[in-house]
C-alpha cells in the first residue's frame, strides 16, 4: 500500500524536540524505512521574516527529491509594504506549490492567530479560486500556542465559516484528537470541502465508523513527524476493518486527488 504523508516538518527548532529534528536526508531515510512514498512537508524557521525563510528552505529541500512535496506556509499578517496578502498565493503557484498551511506567527512582535473571514477573506478567496488545499493544525482551534507564539484565537466555528463561504477551498484539519469526533463528523457532513488527517484519531473502530458515516474520501494519512511516532497512523490504516479501496484512499489517493485538482 502506498502512503503519502500530509503532515511533516523538517528543520531545527529553537527549543529542540526531545528526539531530534528531521532534515531532508533523515526524513527520506525514515520514509524509506517505513516505506512512505511521499510527504507533504514544510521547513521550519524562526526569525524576523520566518514565513519567507520557511518557504525558501522548503523549496530548496523539495528540489532535492520529488518524494518531498512542498507546502507553503502562509503569511497571515501583512509583512510587505507593496504586497497584498492574497498575492502570496500567486507566488506559491508560480513556485509549483499546491498546498498551503497555517502556522502561528512567532516572536515578541507576533499577534495571535485569527482565522476570521474579515481578517483573511481575500486570502481565502484566492485559495478558493485555485482550489488550493488549506492545512490547519487542530491544536490552533484549542488555544494551544507554540513556545514562541501568542495563544491562537481560532475555533471550529471558524472552520465552519471558511468551509461554508469558500466551497471550492479544501480545508484539511490536521491531527484532530480522537475525542473531536463530533466536530469532525458534523463538519464533514455539512461541507463537502472538509477533510481531516487521522494520526491521533484512534479510538477503537473510530476510523472505520467515521469513514462509514462521512466517506473514506474525506480522511487523509498524516504522521506529524518529528513530533509523534509515525508508526501509529500507518498501523491504524493497515489494520482497520475497512476494505482495501478505502484504505488506499486514506493512505495516499485523497491527498493526491486534492493536489491534482489545484488549478
Amino acid at each position, binding site marked *: *500500500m502506498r502512503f503519502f504523508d500530509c503532515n511533516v516538518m523538517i528543520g*531545527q*527548532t529553537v*527549543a*529542540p*524536540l*526531545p*528526539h*531530534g*529534528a528531521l532534515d531532508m536526508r*533523515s526524513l527520506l531515510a525514515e520514509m524509506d*524505512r*517505513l*516505506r512512505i512514498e511521499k510527504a507533504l512537508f514544510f521547513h521550519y524557521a524562526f526569525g524576523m521574516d520566518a514565513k519567507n525563510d520557511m518557504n525558501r528552505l522548503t523549496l530548496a529541500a523539495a528540489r532535492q527529491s520529488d518524494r518531498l512535496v512542498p507546502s507553503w506556509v502562509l503569511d497571515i499578517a501583512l509583512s510587505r509594504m507593496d504586497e497584498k496578502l492574497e498575492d502570496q498565493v500567486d507566488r506559491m503557484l508560480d513556485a509549483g506549490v499546491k498546498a498551503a498551511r497555517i502556522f502561528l506567527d512567532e516572536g515578541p512582535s507576533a499577534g495571535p492567530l485569527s482565522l476570521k473571514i474579515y481578517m483573511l477573506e481575500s486570502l481565502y478567496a484566492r485559495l478558493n479560486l485555485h482550489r488550493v488545499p488549506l492545512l490547519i*493544525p487542530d*491544536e490552533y482551534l*484549542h488555544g*494551544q*500556542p*507554540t*513556545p514562541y507564539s501568542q495563544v491562537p484565537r481560532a475555533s471550529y466555528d471558524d472552520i465552519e465559516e471558511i468551509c461554508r463561504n469558500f466551497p471550492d477551498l479544501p480545508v484539511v484539519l490536521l*491531527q484532530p*484528537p*480522537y475525542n473531536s*469526533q463530533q466536530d469532525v463528523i458534523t463538519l464533514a457532513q455539512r461541507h463537502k470541502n472538509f477533510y481531516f488527517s487521522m494520526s*491521533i484519531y*484512534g*479510538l*477503537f*473502530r*473510530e*476510523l472505520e*465508523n467515521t469513514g462509514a*458515516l462521512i466517506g473514506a474520501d474525506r480522511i487523509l494519512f498524516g504522521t*506529524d*513527524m*518529528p*513530533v*509523534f*511516532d*509515525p*508508526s*501509529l*497512523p*500507518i*498501523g*491504524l*490504516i*493497515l*489494520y*482497520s*476493518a475497512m476494505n482495501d479501496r478505502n484504505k488506499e484512499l486514506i493512505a495516499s489517493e485523497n491527498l493526491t486527488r486534492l493536489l491534482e485538482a489545484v488549478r
Partner: protein
Amino acid sequence: MNRRDFLSQSALSALALPPWARAQASGGAPRRDPVARQGPDAPKLQGPREQSIFDSVRSGRGLEGVDAIDTHAHFQEMPKGVIWPLNVETLMADSHRCGIRQTIVSPFAGYNATNGEQLRAAHDACVEAVAKYPTSLRAYLVFQPHLRKASEAEMPRVLQAESPFVGFKLHGAIDHYPTTGPNYQPLFEFANEHGLTVLLHQSEEELKPVASVIQKYPRLNLILAHIALLPDNLGSYLKANPNLFADTCGSTLPYRRLEQLVHEVGAEKILFGTDATYLAVGSQVAKVAFANISEEEKRLVFGGNARRLFGSRLAPL
C-alpha cells in the same frame, strides 16, 4: 499528552536526555540512531528487510510467529449499532486480525461500579468472556479503592484453580485516588504475598509514590500503563526497581520514545498493550513492530516479558 504540551516541554525534555540524544536533539552532532550502540554488547541494528516482524506488519498480514500478548485491554457489552463498539467479540476480531495471540482484559464496568454488586457482576462478565475464548483471553480483577470491602472480597478469585484472572488492574486516574492511599494497601499486601502482577494507571504525574509502593512490596510486579503519559525520568525508575515495568499503549507516542526507552532500560522492562477497546489495535501493534529495535527486543516487548511475569496464569502457547 497533547501536541502543545509536548512541544512546550520539549526543551526541558531535551535537557533530561542522555548526552548522545541531547547532542542529536540540539543539532550539535551527527544524527545517530538510538539503538546504534557501540561495543560488543550492542544489538545489531537491522534494516526492515531483515525484520520479519516489521515485514509482516508492514504488509498488513498481522504478526506471524510472534507470541504477542496484549497486557492492557478492556471490554464492555454494548448495544448493537453503537459508533464505538466495546464488546469482547469485536475486540477479539481485531486482535486476531493483527495476530495477537492472547489478550488480558479488565472490564470497563468494573471502573464504573458504584457498589459491590456491580463490581462482582463486572468480574462475572470476565469469567464468561474468558470461557468463550479460553485459549486467547484472560482478565484482571479491578480493585476499586472507593469500594474497598467489595474489592477485597473479590481478591481471592485470582487464586482459584483455573482462574481466568491473572492479576489486578488499578485505575487511580479514574478514581482520583493516590497510589499510596490506604485503600490500596490491602491489595498491594495481597499481591505481594502471592507474587502477583498489578497493572496501574496512576493518578499522579510523578513516579515517587509508585517507587515507595514497589520498594515496600518487592514480590509484586507493577506495570505502569501508558509510557507516553509517564514522565521523562521513567527510565531511571525502571532501572532502579526490578519489579517495575511499563506498557506501550497510548493514543500517541513521542517520536523515537520507545527506542530511547529500550536503549535506556532494556526491552525486558517494557510490555505490549493496546488499550483496546478504548483505542484501536492496529496502531498499537505498529508502534512496536516498526520501532527501530532488534527483532529479539520486539519479541520481548510483544510477549516474552508477559510470559515471564504472568507465567502459567496465561493460556499456554
